[in-house]
């Protein structure tokens, strides 16, 4: 746009054009510096836990990823791809190569390999801990690129700055949170950017890149189904609102074909890419877009009369064929019990599905719906800016802005279903808030600029810039400059009836937009700018506070502040795991609730029965039944599974609320879901869950109670449980089938060993058919316990 003007305007205007290109270059350099700073900000705000604690992997899931990465770095990619892990889900084992999303592990493994080949000696753990902050910097840059495609570089920089700091994303990508989302959010935003870029340019090159970025997303996270459903929804929206263009076809059709193929390459997805309902939307829209493309093509080559004839013919024939096809499709899909959808996807559509049918999914705390305060905690100020951003996207409505609107609407719905999906909302909220803030600053600074007296030394440049903002491409002739300068300074509400009339006739559109542009009063705009800056300051303060206090806990190490301000560290988990790794045989099996499975295999290096993957509900129910049964039955169950040690987490001494007694009801529910002799009301007194003297006998006799509270009275003499805030019911008892081998310093982890079978049983015959027939007579009236 600069060249035609400078060519026409002659030598007096080259100075203006030169300064303009200098200003553009200057702006480009500043934008680059800002992007580098945003990357540094995104990286450093996530380092609080490394500073406060140490460079350690957090939580539960990251330990599994860390163990897999260790294996990959030690054994290479072929062994990793074909790895059958026999140290977990004993005796079933787990096909790691086929059930893990390899993106994160392969990324970290590649970084480790590259860095080590450059002779920088970083350990695998260091690479794993810092992968997430690095990729969050990349995600901010991807958000810049995406928003630049939608609205412009100013909005892009704002969106990138917001995404670097948003607490929701920080919570899943702190240094040490080595989980799939660390890489997946970058892949998500980058895929969307490439899709929008292809949509805007219509280039097949970007379509290829888009498919490859989608492949990286499929490798990284199960949330890729969001992409493969959102993009077809957007294509449908564009077709329905009459925005079909051949660029849309180029953006969508190669993505579907290449994307489906690439998705089937990943072993976790495999043939699900063509067989499950989650992908059917993409195929349906694929067919629809071909029909629409054909219709537009025929419309282009026929005359309008002939086209009408064609339409009537096609409609009459095609409708019959369509109905037949749809009927067949519905019959095929309806024949499967869940209509082809997986349990987790059904939970998204019907939030009550999981609690009714699949207790395991309902028990994960991340799968609960979020509370209202969590929205404010997680996206803070952006919650107010998003509606403004949505409105800004409508002026003007382009393909890319309609995509962003669709993205925010769907992600708001899904974040309302599962708190874990607030993470998908975060980039959308940042993009829209960036657009809103950028537009607001545009209007306010423009108002200030044109009302400050003598602001622009060369008013013609100011006017030309203003016209450029209006999007007019008309040429400004030299002799028009003085007249348009006056026009610029006048209030746009007044009509110009003076010498500018010829300008108005020649260029009607610029004058119309001049009239429509609002110029706010100077004081109001200055105050508004200051208030917006203040809003941003509040956001930054909240984000830094959230990163430092709320989301940097590694949860494997706990701290508390004592009364005199000292810091007390609870390192019980690692203490227990290192005891296990030093004092037990390599092949010993450890039973615990599934939460601790990943940590046990990664840190203690022992075989476990169940872990956080929760793929086998029956096996978890077996462990849950064992924990809910009396000692003898529990011993039988564990002995049949070759278990040597049982691990329980107990928070009663220090007040740690996430211990196994608090999770116990879930064990009962999950166990009762598979073994009907475990009934939840047996453990509740009047519908209330208690462990004090009023607890039911079933509760007081179950293994979990006994293992948690064995010798608990010795701590304070009264047995006062700090978490439940009561004294326990049964205080003095002995364990008959288990023996305590280790309790950590703060009693948080307790390890028990199964006592071996007695060689001689006094007074009774051997365990044989006779005792079984005796017990079976007794059990006839109640439900059969399959463990007898």
């Amino acid at each position, binding site marked *: 746009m600069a060249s035609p003007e400078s060519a026409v305007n002659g030598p007096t205007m080259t100075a203006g054009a030169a300064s303009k290109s200098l200003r553009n270059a200057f702006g480009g350099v500043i934008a680059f510096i800002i992007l580098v700073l945003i990357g540094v900000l995104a990286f450093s705000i996530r380092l609080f836990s490394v500073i406060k604690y140490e460079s350690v992997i957090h939580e539960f899931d990251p330990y599994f990823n860390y163990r897999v990465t260790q294996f990959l770095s030690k054994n290479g990619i072929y062994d990793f791809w074909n790895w059958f892990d026999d140290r977990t889900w004993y005796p079933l084992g787990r096909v790691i190569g086929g059930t893990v999303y390899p993106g994160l592990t392969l990324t970290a493994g590649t970084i480790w390999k590259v860095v080590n080949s450059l002779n920088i000696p970083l350990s695998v753990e260091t690479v794993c801990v810092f992968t997430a902050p690095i990729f969050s910097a990349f995600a901010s840059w991807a958000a810049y690129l995406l928003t630049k495609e939608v609205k412009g570089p100013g909005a892009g920089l704002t969106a990138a700055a917001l995404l670097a700091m948003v607490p929701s994303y920080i919570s899943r990508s702190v240094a040490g949170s080595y989980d799939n989302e660390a890489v997946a959010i970058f892949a998500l935003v980058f895929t969307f950017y490439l899709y929008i870029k292809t949509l805007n340019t219509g280039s*097949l090159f970007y379509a*290829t890149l888009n498919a490859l970025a989608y492949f990286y997303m499929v490798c990284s996270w199960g949330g890729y189904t969001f992409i493969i459903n959102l993009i077809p929804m957007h294509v449908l929206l564009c077709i329905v609102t009459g925005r079909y263009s*051949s*660029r849309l076809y180029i953006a969508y059709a190669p993505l579907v074909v290449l994307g489906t193929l690439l998705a089937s390459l990943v072993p976790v997805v495999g*043939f699900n890419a*063509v067989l499950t309902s989650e992908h059917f939307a993409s195929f349906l829209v694929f067919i629809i877009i071909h029909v629409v493309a054909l219709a537009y093509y025929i419309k282009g080559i026929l005359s309008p009369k*002939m086209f009408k*004839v064609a339409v009537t013919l096609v409609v009459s024939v095609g409708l019959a064929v369509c109905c037949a096809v749809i009927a067949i499709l519905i019959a095929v899909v309806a024949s499967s019990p869940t209509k082809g959808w997986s349990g987790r996807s059904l939970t998204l559509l019907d939030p009550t599905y999981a609690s009714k049918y699949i207790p395991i999914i309902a028990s994960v705390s991340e799968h609960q719906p979020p509370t209202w305060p969590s929205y404010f905690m997680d996206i803070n100020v952006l919650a107010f800016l998003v509606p403004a951003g949505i409105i800004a996207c409508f002026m003007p409505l382009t393909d890319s802005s309609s995509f962003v609107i669709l993205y925010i609407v769907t992600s708001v719905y899904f974040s309302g279903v599962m708190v874990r999906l607030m993470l998908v909302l975060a980039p959308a909220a940042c993009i829209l808030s960036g657009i809103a803030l950028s537009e607001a600053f545009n209007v306010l600074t423009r108002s200030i600029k044109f009302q400050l007296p003598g602001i622009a030394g060369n008013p013609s440049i100011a006017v030309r810039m203003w016209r450029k903002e209006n999007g007019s491409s008309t040429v400004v002739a030299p002799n028009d400059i003085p007249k348009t300068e006056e026009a610029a300074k006048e209030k746009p509400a007044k009509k110009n009836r003076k010498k500018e009339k010829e300008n108005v006739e020649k260029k009607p559109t610029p004058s119309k937009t001049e009239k429509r542009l609002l110029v706010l009063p100077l004081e109001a705009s200055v105050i508004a700018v200051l208030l917006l800056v203040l809003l941003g300051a509040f956001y930054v303060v909240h984000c830094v506070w959230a990163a430092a206090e709320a989301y940097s806990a590694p949860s494997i190490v706990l701290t508390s502040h004592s009364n005199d301000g000292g810091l007390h560290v609870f390192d019980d988990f690692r203490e227990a795991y290192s005891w296990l790794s030093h004092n037990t045989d390599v092949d010993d099996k450890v039973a615990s609730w599934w939460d601790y499975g990943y940590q046990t295999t990664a840190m203690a290096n022992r075989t476990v029965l169940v872990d956080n993957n929760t793929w086998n509900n029956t096996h978890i129910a077996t462990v849950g039944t064992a924990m809910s049964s009396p000692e003898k039955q529990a011993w039988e169950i564990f002995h049949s599974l070759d278990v040597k040690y049982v691990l329980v987490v107990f928070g009663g001494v220090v007040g740690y609320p996430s211990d196994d007694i608090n999770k116990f009801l879930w064990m009962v529910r999950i166990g009762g879901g598979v073994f009907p002799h475990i009934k939840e009301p047996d453990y509740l007194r009047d519908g209330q869950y208690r462990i004090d003297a009023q607890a039911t006998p079933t509760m007081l006799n179950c293994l979990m109670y006994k293992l948690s509270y064995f010798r608990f009275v010795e701590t304070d003499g009264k047995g006062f449980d700090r978490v439940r805030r009561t004294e326990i019911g049964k205080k003095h008892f002995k364990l008959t089938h288990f023996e305590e081998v280790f309790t950590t310093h703060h009693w948080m982890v307790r390890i028990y060993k199964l006592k071996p079978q007695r060689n001689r049983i006094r007074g009774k015959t051997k365990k044989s058919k006779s005792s079984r027939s005796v017990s079976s007579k007794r059990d006839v009236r109640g439900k059969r316990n399959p463990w007898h």
Partner: protein
Amino acid sequence: MGRSSTVKETQALFQSLRSAYAATPNNLKIIDVFVGFAVLTAIIQVVYMAVVGSFPFNSFLSGVLSCIGTAVLAVCLRIQVNKDNKEFKDVAPERAFADFILCNLVLHLVIMNFMG
């Protein structure tokens, strides 16, 4: 009476379709033939699968999707090369063809990997 007019209209419709299509340049017609060939190959594969069974499902999938993918990419090439498309006026046909080749390379690399 209505039927004969609809028959006449249909005939006129097909006539105009044919004449309008005959007016398209030769290079576009070549691409169209290629698209038709690819779709025909895909249909033959589907019929074969219906007869023989889909046991190595990945082979079937890769075969069909390679044909459909080539067809789709050829249609994209046709869109970009077509001189009547004003949106792609400033895209040189060589650039469009280079993009087409690149995308086909990626597609067939994936196909060869997936075929098993």
